[in-house]
């Protein structure tokens, strides 16, 4: 499985999760886990996704998410999960 971690940070507005999820569905990226909080009106979401069947390559999806974030005033990052595994698991 090719897993990645998506982090979404920014001012809370209506429809953030909907838009991010729609984008991922269109790219055939499967969501495995979502954790989300609002801290002082700041939206903070971490998603773990499976990209094994993704339609586009990683860089295209990463750029797409970045643009989506920019259009909503959010910072959206996607990172391959390995970096967290390497750092926090022996």
């Amino acid at each position, binding site marked *: 499985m090719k897993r990645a971690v998506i*982090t979404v940070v920014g001012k809370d507005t209506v429809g953030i999760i909907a838009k991010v999820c729609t984008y991922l569905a269109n790219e055939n990226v499967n969501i495995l886990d979502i954790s989300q909080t609002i801290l002082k009106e700041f939206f903070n979401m*971490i998603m773990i996704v499976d990209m094994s069947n993704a339609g586009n390559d990683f*860089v295209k999806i990463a750029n797409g998410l970045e643009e989506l974030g920019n259009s909503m005033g959010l910072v959206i990052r*996607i990172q391959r999960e*390995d*970096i967290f595994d390497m750092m*926090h698991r022996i």
Partner: protein
Amino acid sequence: MINRAEVLETNKMIQESKLDVRTITLGISLLDCIDSDLKKCCDRIYDKITKTAEKLVPTGELIEKEYQIPIVNKRISITPAALVGGACCKSKEDFVEIAKTLDRAAATVGVNFLGGFSALVSKGMTKADKDLITSIPLALSQTNALCSSVNVGSTKTGIDMDAVELLGHIILETAEATKDQGSLGCAKLVVLCNAPDDNPFMAGAFHGVTESDAIINVGVSGPGVVKRALEEVRGENFEVLCETIKKTAFKITRVGQLVAKEASELMGIPFGIVDLSLAPTPAIGDSVAEILKEIGVDEPGAPGTTAALALLNDQVKKGGLMASSYVGGLSGAFIPVSEDQGMIDAVNRGALTIEKLEAMTCVCSVGLDMIAVPGDTEPSKISGIIADEMAIGMINQKTTAVRLIPVIGKTVGDTVEFGGLLGTAPVMSVNSFGCSSFVSRGGRIPAPVHSFKN
């Protein structure tokens, strides 16, 4: 599955504490480019570098994107040029031709530095070694990306004092040849003792003759991350302090290991080593000096600094060693002056002198690094400083290095601006007493007694 706190911790390191991979350095052997004809040799060098390193920069950029971690530099190290050019270079001008070829190849593949315009002369110099060394001032003033190093000593061989004496003059000539740029050429010239074959960091990187045809070496960094972690344990005892550094170094090095493996796979070039160094930059919060202050000295240079640095260097190694399958290079804390805002401040406040820096180099991973001295410093004094530093390396069986910049037209109290990662250097004072009778004796210092282990 990875949890929220772990994701946030990693991303905080990258975004707030400036965790980065300092360099992916591709080591390339040029031994198969040797030819008795200079033009043929240069053509082969250019072809081999541009072909082998073709994918280096795009690979680095892809990894940056996939993990959202900055990879600050993509660089190349090559077989010491004195060995490659020995058969075809009959004069120093011929070596300048090789230097220009290397610079052209570096520009084509888009790397910011190429290291290995080097000679290994720890016991003596061949004619080619001498020609290369005397070509350094011209070579560095006519190229942009080229870095040069000379290994003048080792624990096994002793110190080649003829080379040390010569380099005092060469460093000053390089300063003079690049005086329009604040004597910048000297920032790309380092004199080493016990130079490692697999160092990914400039200016001392070269691809040793013991290495395979091409290899990926990665240098990690992250002084900001260590500093931030130590802020959390202020006032705690040494055990807690050391454990914190170790754990942080482990995490930093794991990222280096990941990037090295990934780059190796993508480029189809074997992974060599991870160099687990704490390498500062002039950026605020990316400073080894700040770590020393966090450990508890008021300024780097204050009493206690050497002990604090010894502890830091050792814990970085202990934490990093388990994090990577192969550790190499210099691996420890770097203490350059111009590249570390905290060190610059310490010099300007009068806390840090060359003599204290020399003591600190006994316990850190390199040496007297990026130190500006007055442009009118005598060559024999520069040779004397090099000899002292080489002796520390030789006796303590460690790598030491000297990267001094005699800034032409400047004196103590002035500063010189190099820009970028090389930073700003306050001109430091050199002991007013001389050593010309010592450095001009000729010959070499024999290997120390503890090198005879056979």
